[in-house]
């Protein structure tokens, strides 16, 4: 298996934004097929003969799997039709079929940008459905679904001095950034502080050390919880000592919620919260926007004609699932937008921001919205 860094060298286009689309022959064919109700046939046969070219779906073939740590694997993928590369820091929605049901999760792209290849680095979450399935069942040669890269956790255009604060699997988006900067020789002054449980839990630790050795503009510090000299774990004062100009830098953080909350508090207290970019892998503690778990709200699903009861104290997605509905969704935390649907009427509040949407015909994300009133949704 080629080390991910060789891909970095082969990176052909660090795409930032997608170029306007040209109408290709295949698109014209797809349109004609649709006119004649032959689009299903077209999709079937293309998928049968060359799966990665399947129209209307973005697929990728697993080209390599390697162990990063005892509980983390990197899957390298050859992306199919439609993949336009990614900007370091962005994620893709991976979908796989588990026991007949399609499941979608976000994974940050951990490789440097490429128009053909990408890798994702997945840590087992205890009891987690998809992460464990990927570890236990995904094989080289298998085909999985991906989505165009998305997300705003990206480097600013004019960043000279950077600070990466990563913990655990939260290293993945910053790994992509570091690999990209290394491949382009673009480090000016970057510090990466990476927190992990032990030396065995460092993802790509050797590679990061090597990059640091080769690039004078990149300083890499690994901090382990199990360090015997008392320097382990996250500590505000030690971080400040290590990187005295931390608040002047464009800072990035990603890791477990507890650590991120503390980092966030530091930047907030210093009054420079806007200089800190965050990527959360899990839903932050819900802001309590007055949701009452004892209030029942009825939700009319206008497409299916069914009605379900949800409470004010849960997300609409969770409530609908409890009622036996299976609405489309992805990350369950307001990021991937796969659960977005039209709210025909009623009032909902965003449980992350507390924002209220009470005008009719607005699009809402049901995974981070709770019902303030009875609702009608175009589901």
């Amino acid at each position, binding site marked *: 298996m080629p080390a991910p860094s060789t891909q970095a060298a082969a990176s052909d286009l660090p795409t930032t934004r997608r170029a306007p689309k040209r109408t290709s022959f295949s698109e014209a064919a797809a349109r004609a097929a649709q006119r*004649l*109700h032959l689009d299903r*046939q077209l999709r079937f046969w293309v998928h049968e003969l060359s799966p990665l070219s399947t129209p209307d779906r973005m697929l990728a073939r697993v080209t390599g799997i390697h162990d990063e740590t005892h509980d983390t694997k990197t899957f390298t993928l050859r992306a199919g039709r439609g993949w336009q590369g990614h900007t370091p820091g962005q994620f893709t929605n991976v979908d796989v079929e588990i*026991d*007949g049901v*399609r499941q979608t999760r976000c994974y940050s792209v951990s490789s440097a940008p490429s128009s053909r290849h990408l890798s994702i680095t997945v840590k087992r979450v205890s009891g987690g459905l998809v992460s464990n399935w990927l570890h236990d069942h995904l094989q080289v040669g298998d085909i999985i679904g991906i989505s165009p890269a998305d997300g705003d956790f990206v480097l600013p255009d004019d960043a000279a001095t950077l600070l990466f604060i990563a913990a655990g699997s939260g290293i993945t988006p910053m790994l992509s950034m570091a690999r990209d900067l290394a491949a382009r020789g673009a480090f000016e002054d970057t510090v990466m502080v990476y927190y992990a449980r032990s030396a065995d839990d460092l993802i790509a630790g050797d590679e990061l050390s090597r990059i640091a050795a080769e690039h004078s503009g990149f300083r890499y510090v690994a901090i382990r919880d199990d360090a015997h000299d008392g320097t382990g774990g996250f500590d505000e004062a030690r971080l400040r000592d290590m990187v005295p100009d931390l608040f002047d830098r464009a800072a990035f953080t990603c890791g477990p919620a507890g650590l991120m909350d503390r980092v966030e508090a530091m930047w907030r207290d210093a009054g420079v919260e806007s200089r800190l970019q965050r990527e959360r892998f899990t839903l932050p503690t819900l802001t309590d926007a007055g949701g009452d778990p004892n209030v029942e709200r009825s939700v009319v699903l206008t497409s*299916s004609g069914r009605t379900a009861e949800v409470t004010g104290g849960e997300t609409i997605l969770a409530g609908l699932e409890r009622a036996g509905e*299976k609405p489309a969704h992805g990350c369950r935390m307001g990021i991937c937008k796969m659960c977005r649907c039209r709210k025909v009427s009623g009032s909902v509040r965003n449980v992350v921001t507390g924002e209220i949407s009470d005008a009719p015909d607005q699009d809402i994300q049901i995974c981070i919205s709770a019902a303030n009133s009875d609702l009608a949704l175009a589901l």
Partner: protein
Amino acid sequence: MFRLQRNTQAPTISVELSEEEADAFGAELDALRAEIVADLGQSDVDHIRSIIRWCQYSEAGGRALLHFGIGPLSFVLGAGALTVSKILENMEIGHNIMHGQYDWTRDPELDSGTYDWDNACAAENWQHYHNFEHHKYTNILGKDRDIGYGLLRVSEEQEWNPSHLVQPISALILASLFQWGVAAHDLHVDEVRPNRKSVMALYERSRPFLKKARRQLAKDYLFFPALALANAPRVFAGNMIANFGRNLWTFAVIFCGHFPDGVRIYSEEECENESRGQWYARQINGSANIEGGRLFHIMTGHLSHQIEHHLFPQIPAARYPQIAERVQEICERYGQAYNTDSFGSQLGGVARKILRYALPGPARPQATAATA
């Protein structure tokens, strides 16, 4: 795959259930449903995908034989393969996907909201009229418009009118043009009055159908023949035979599902405020099964298990044979007739009714029992 045993002990006329009995009956069927839903998984998806694969390969093979073949043998084989593919697509694949039987997979290819079958009847229209009117109001005279498709008199409860005299012939015409019959039926063509408003309303609700019909006709009778160049007439004829064959087959299967001997027709009053258990009983008494092997069931889209389909329209149809024995056993305990017979007998029963009810009578004040 097993065949259902015809049980001579089984009741042929259902008893009326008391309210408590109906509730218990409904609870047993609900439990059966929950058990199957909990068990859905990979094998169900694998099944429908393999049928889709068969359907696609037989369509491609059939069209290739029609387009490139020479002589009658390749024509017959080609038209046959295309017919099989069209039947699979409409019955086991399209009908069942559009019922939402595979929505739980979250696979867009199997999604009831977006699937549109290879049929003149537009998915939007069908989903409303079939999924809603027919499945909810099954066999309620005046509500379920599928009773005789507004054209045929198939029960004594339907009022006779002189047009029924020619219904043996109208039935044959309906059978050969069945997809167009269903499409027109779903558009309520029979309700159009000779005034501008009514005709405009028909035009409005026909839009999805007109678009669909245009494309369907263009595909089979312009696009593929044109592609075949010199073989155009062959391709045209082959496509026509395939559509015709599918029409006859679906007509036969569907009429056997609701109109053989022993199937009961309900009045609106009987069904007012009915409980879930009573609704289940009506579904059973208003439907009939056809016996056959695994291949036969697949070719009917498992509508040969019309009873199970009407009880559980959203459970993947390939599960029906597996639950039929249990449904039959529950029915027996509650004294509900479980109408199942061979294709020949059920079809014979339908034919007899179409002939018998072409003539007026027999007059009966109120329908409660079956005619058999």
